[in-house]
């Protein structure tokens, strides 16, 4: 049960993030929603890394007792993936916020309802 809590958190984070992006109209909230989805995806990767058993497909880093007494270990690959993904996330969030800032400067747009010059 304890080991499933991270997965529940992943689902909650991605779900809340998607809800915000689909139903909230404020642009800053939109950016927050995207960041939440990103956090959920990153947490998912990190959770995948920590496991027990003998599936030694990559070098083992830690040795701690987890669950049923089998040695637990942490795969390095998901950590590398998460780091990369965080860096990418920073870039996209910064770019998105920059666009929102410029939109506010140009048209005083702060809501999705006003950001619909391009349509049809």
């Amino acid at each position, binding site marked *: 049960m304890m080991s499933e809590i991270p997965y529940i958190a992943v689902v909650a984070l*991605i779900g809340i993030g*998607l809800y915000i*992006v*689909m*139903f*909230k*109209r404020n642009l800053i909230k*939109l950016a927050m929603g*995207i960041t939440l*989805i*990103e956090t*959920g*995806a990153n947490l*998912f*990767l990190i959770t*995948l890394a920590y496991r027990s058993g003998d*599936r030694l*497909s*990559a070098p083992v880093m830690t040795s701690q007792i987890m669950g049923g007494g089998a040695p637990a270990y942490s*795969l390095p*690959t*998901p950590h590398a*993936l998460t780091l*990369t*993904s965080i860096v*990418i996330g920073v*870039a*996209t969030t910064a*770019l*998105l916020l920059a*666009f*929102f800032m*410029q*939109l506010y400067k*140009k*048209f005083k*747009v702060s809501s*999705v*309802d006003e*950001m*619909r*010059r*391009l*349509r*049809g």
Partner: protein
Amino acid sequence: MSFYDDLIANAPALIVAIPLLFAFATPLVSKINKGLRNVWAFLAVLLSGALMYVLAWEIFKDGGDLASVYVFGGDNAEVFNVLENVRITFYVDGMAAFMGLIMATVAFGAIIYSFSFVKKYSGQDKYYTLLLLMLAANFGMVFTGDLFNLFVWFEVSSVAICGLIAFRTNRGESFEGAAKYLIYSTIAGLLLLFAIGLLYGEYGHLNIKYLSSAIGAGGSMLMIDRIALGILVTVFALKAGAVPMHMATPDGYSEAPAPITAMMVTASQAGLYAMFRSTFTLYGGNIQNAVEQLDLLHAAGYLLVILGVLSMFVGVTLALVQKDIKRLMAYHAISQTGYMLLGVGVGLAVYAQGGNNDFAEFGRTAMAGGIFHIFNHALYKGLLFLTAGAIIYKAGTRDLNKMGGLGRDMKMTALFFIIGALAIAGVPPANGFASKFLIYESVFRFNPVIGAVAMLVSLLTLASFVKVFYSAFMGPKNPDMKVGEVPKTMLIGMAVLAGMILVFSFLPSLVLSEIVDPAVTALAGPGPAIDFNLTLFSGQGGWNALVFLVVFIVMFILGYLLRLVLGNKGTTPKNEGAKPYLFGNPTEIGGVPIVVSGSNVYWGFIRALKRYYRPMEKMHSGLINEYVFWFMGTIGLVMLALMVLI
């Protein structure tokens, strides 16, 4: 090992590394000299493009079943066969090399065109930096041998593209288009990462080759496999711009500078590539073993067909009502993507059917048609976006109603436009017809109704390009417009693509046998050998462009003789032909003539279909929330179809 062998062995890494390195050095070079910066950026595209051509030559030279594997941090692939699974690899087979060739060609035309096109803007350093970054991301996305780097290149491509969409900072709309495109592609990218996490958690590897041997090895498909496939297919369909996840695509395409739009076409096609990779290679690697896997792929094939038909039809009908020239062309890009999805989807559906000869009879031809269409589409759509850029450059407006008479001054641009328009509409003997011919004939065997829809869409495509030609190039000269032809480098950029269209219009079988067939082989395994022949065979019939050329020349001479005999009377306002034809309605009411604006020549057709167009207008509301909702709804439906219905 000679220098040439070394070069070939390291080419996959170099093709990506050169634009990356040059991209980050561009701002520095720009500090020295602005002219040097242009040469520098051109050199990057030229070098990596030339290497791409050399590598493709090596891969395609002996029938095309070779693949170039580059293992980062390893001496060579054979020695580290086991470790290859945990390393970062580039895997360039027939399909990847095919995509790489297209990207290199379009980028070459686009960068030459850029020199004059962006001259009047500030921030050109960033423009060239991002252009090269986008090129590197495009190459990386098709070369990568592991799923995680697919995600990385996907995101690099999105960031570079969005930066370029917002390049014209004086237009507020460009920020809006960029923001929408970025929100869409970021959410897609994160869901892609989630799907990759699912596969990694199950199989403990990211290498596509390893995963393809592991998925379905137990004889059944796990729920995780189905969910992951659903996400992968939908996300890549979004990147490719398939309906109903297309809404941000026209915004991005129409706001980006024209050469970037031409390159964005190839970036979208990288999404298509990733979709075909994930269905054929990732999930189809073990295809002989499991019945469940066949069913899953069969269903995925039908999904691609549905997405394809929707994209074709919705794209072209919406293009018909546009009055912004670039937005119109962007909807056509969506519509043409439908053809590729349709062709390869039919291929996948019958490939995974098993137990009959459908794949050999028409499935392979459909796939070849779809993949061939990728090649043709990149050339003619790239050319059309460049001509649209030239029109906007000279006319100063993107509104079809405000422009007119440009053909009098821009003769070359008009010629290039005609070449591109004939190709996109699939009018023989242009190259677009060759690939559409393969699609029509094979899809007709699959389902006659879909084959008929594909032809109808071509007709509507022609109709809307007639509209553009009519409102932009024909008519009296507008005194407000700047006169004269566009600068030389823009013409050269367009001529590169137009020349390739002309050459391959008359040698479609050369492309089919030399590069398309190896690409199909890379996805679906070897088939019967296709030899070079001047006539293109679809299995049902043949098509020879040269015959049509002769017919056209004869007709032209006849028409010219007729003109000599009858004399050139021209059209005067007195002639009956000079009056507007309004579907039989009166042309004036109470002495006031009715004027139909250039963008609205099909008003009768559109009014008759208002029951269709009203909900379409509501669907494209401009609200990014609703767009994301459509995306989520599609993912949900696709997953439902893959999990429950089969």
